[in-house]
């Protein structure tokens, strides 16, 4: 039997952990908050996007 890390990830898990998904969700949130004049939410989601842009950078 293959070790966990050697088995291919399931299709659902792979889809839910797609690296583009957090970007899409945060981008939608930032623009929607800006359009709704939700200042705090807009800045906070822009901050989150900035954090996510450093993905993998240590």
């Amino acid at each position, binding site marked *: 039997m293959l070790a*966990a*890390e050697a*088995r*291919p*990830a399931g299709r659902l*898990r*792979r889809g*839910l*952990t*797609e*690296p*583009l*998904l*957090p*970007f899409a969700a*945060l*981008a939608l949130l*930032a*623009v929607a*908050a*800006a*359009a709704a*004049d939700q*200042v*705090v939410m*807009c*800045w*906070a*989601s*822009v*901050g*989150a*996007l*900035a*954090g*996510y*842009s*450093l*993905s*993998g*950078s*240590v």
Partner: protein
Amino acid sequence: MLFSPGWRAPVRQSQVLAVFSLGLLLGGTLSATVLWLLSGLAAPVPGPVRTGAILTVGVLGVAREAGWVRIPMPQNARQIPQEVLRYRVRRGALQFGFELGTGVRTFVSASAPYVVALGLLLAHQGPVTTILTGTGFGVGRAVTATVRYASRHDEWDDRRVTRMPLVANGIGVTVLAALALLLLR
């Protein structure tokens, strides 16, 4: 490393993720608090000038990310030493997360953090908005670790590397669009 499927330490990986994420949030919050204090210096500048400057910075951020212009930005060009994780895993993960969360202790490989930091300095928002933006920065960094952990597969790193150019450029454009929409209304 911290969240790879090959974890062998005697501490549960989910605990390490929680402590690491807490550190990221605290680090981002601290940096934003400093930015809020400094942003008072921009207060005497007229609002339209500050808005123009923020959007100019946003445009330059997009151009820099796309490689159209070369603008050297200050960064602490070194990695956080691995020793912080060697002896006390939980405390080390907290420290590691905190240092990463501040955004000033290691490499900054994208333009968006500079745009947001300069935007906060120039916009001189209230303390809640500024500080929560820093907390949001920590959340954004924690998302990477959480999704990496949830993927339970090393192949996720390859997907991340493949998607990063699109993500980094997309984030640059989105930050500019969101701030333009917010500030020009």
